[in-house]
């Protein structure tokens, strides 16, 4: 109730005319339509241009199946690792004071500000045949670049901030009062983490993981640099789409692309559903003072 009156008062103060409001809404909707909605529709239209059978045929291709498998595998490795890292980093940042905390916070944001191509290139320079550690790796028969480990590393790097960025503000807001209460009641550290800390951030964590997963499956730039584009071996779904497109195989390209777009839509839908279904629980996860 209080929120409603507050909004109304704000609206009265800002007081734009109905015309201005209509124009603003029209601009926003048009912009969204051109930049977001229309392209997504095109993806699906192109995918089904030659009918449903042609659409399905795109997934009969063993290379396409290999790309889907690889993408799933990369996500299955990168996302859990980033979940663990994100939890650890945000726990450390939110609940403890230490030297270099601000540097760590900045570092977590680094992947957002660095071009994905650079992110990939770093690993090539480190682990590639001519790279720093290249000769040593070769001598020990370890293949990182142009293989699964490189793709996973590049993906982890790029999706690094998602979980941590979601959790840090939440954990900072919540403080360590409940953890201290649990400890004072006799609970050990691990028990406190599992019964207090984790449940309190579960929705934020789920958001972070969903976004991290969507990005991990969709990453192109960084992965393109380290993958080497070996068809059916090191091409992930986004790379496969590019290859098909460059071969003028538009229907197949858009069919695989539509699968990626679908993934994005499902992620958004899941996020919205969670917000709607557990809105109260999420809101109550933020302390009221």
């Amino acid at each position, binding site marked *: 109730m209080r929120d409603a009156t507050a909004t109304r008062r704000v609206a009265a103060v800002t007081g734009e005319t109905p015309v201005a409001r209509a124009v603003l809404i029209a601009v926003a909707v048009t912009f969204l339509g051109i930049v977001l909605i229309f392209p997504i529709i095109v993806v699906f239209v192109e995918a089904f241009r030659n009918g449903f059978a042609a659409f399905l045929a795109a997934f009969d291709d063993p290379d396409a199946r290999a790309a889907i498998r690889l993408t799933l595998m990369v996500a299955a490795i990168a996302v859990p690792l980033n979940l663990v890292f994100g939890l650890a980093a945000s726990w450390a940042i939110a609940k403890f004071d230490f030297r270099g905390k601000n540097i760590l916070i900045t570092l977590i944001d680094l992947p957002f500000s660095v071009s994905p191509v650079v992110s990939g290139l770093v690993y090539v320079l480190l682990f590639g045949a001519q790279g720093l550690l290249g000769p040593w790796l070769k001598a020990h028969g370890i293949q990182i670049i142009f293989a699964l480990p490189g793709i996973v590393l590049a993906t982890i790097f790029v999706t690094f901030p998602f979980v941590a960025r979601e959790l840090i503000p939440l954990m900072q807001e919540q403080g360590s*009062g*409940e953890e*201290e*209460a*649990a*400890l*004072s*009641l*006799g*609970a*050990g550290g691990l*028990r406190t983490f599992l*019964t*207090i800390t984790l*449940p*309190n951030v579960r929705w934020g964590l789920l958001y972070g993981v969903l976004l991290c997963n969507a990005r991990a499956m969709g990453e192109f730039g960084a992965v393109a640099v380290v993958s080497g584009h070996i068809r059916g071996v090191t091409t992930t779904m986004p790379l496969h789409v590019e290859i098909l497109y460059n071969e003028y195989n538009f229907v197949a390209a858009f069919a695989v692309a539509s699968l990626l777009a679908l993934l994005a839509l499902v992620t958004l839908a899941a996020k919205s559903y969670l917000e709607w279904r557990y809105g109260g*629980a999420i809101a*109550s*996860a933020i*302390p*009221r*003072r």
Partner: protein
Amino acid sequence: MDIRIVDIAKDFGGTGALRGVSLDIRDGELIALLGPSGSGKTTLLRVIAGLEIPSAGQVLFANEDATNLPVQHRRIGFVFQHYALFRHMTVFDNIAYGLRVRPRAEQPSRQEIGQRVEALLDLVQLPGIEKRYPAHLSGGQRQRVALARALAVEPRVLLLDEPLGALDAKVRKDLRRWLRELHDRTGHTTVFVTHDQDEALELADRVAILNEGRVEQIGTPDEVYDTPASPFVMAFVGDTTSMPIELRDGQATFAGKRLMADIIGSVEGQTQLYLRPGDAVLVKPDPDDLAGTVLGVRRTATGRRVHVRLDPTATEIEIEAAASRNVSVGEAVGVRILKGRVFSAA
């Protein structure tokens, strides 16, 4: 349980530091740590709890060194200022938490836990709210649930950080009385932190007054109010006003005029006289009394607080007058000092 705090120091490089605090807490007593913000009172409470590790000194629980005992093993009950109830758990689960995290061998059965939670909710006068979540409770209810949760583990000492600080005035008064009754009934050794002198004086058996990381005085409410050990204590536990005087062989003078007041404490030479507003009275202007001019009058619950500038200096003091006395601003009045207190510079 007796608690002895010996020369505790804690340095954060900020406010709330402790600089050598010693305090004996007796078994079963209700003791208040009173002080302004930044005085270190909350830090001291957290040191007792084991939530802060002191940089020097010792904490003894029943004559056993507990300085390095982790908080989980101290068997204390801590009620946090903002209660820190587990927001994702029901009231039942909150209160049962401390029982459920016990090692399996010491864990009560499901049935025992249920009975215990029920008994505690009765004790804090909130029966029937087991299934509610903290977000759906009022401030006073949360406070009492937090207390029940702390009591569930049968603590050896109960530590309360500003237990009534986040509540509004009316609820506060009720809970204050209730808290005292609860203490008398359960007999827990209890330490609570407050910045509210009324709360400390009304609730506690003894009050420890902290200032800038040191204990200024420890005593019963009567002792700290009636025989304050320092100007700080005198000013902090009650209204205090002061004026410069000269003291020679027990004879006080103000601006050359002799004072007929009882002076407690002995100092030679220039010093500051501290008095309660009730320790001076307004009289008709008279050559034998001090002369002053009324600068302002405020109505209080019990009378009038008159702000007077003493001639011929610029000294201003506050005097309590009866509500029936009509005083107007600018009026020339006589002031008679009945008693006051001087402190030798420490």
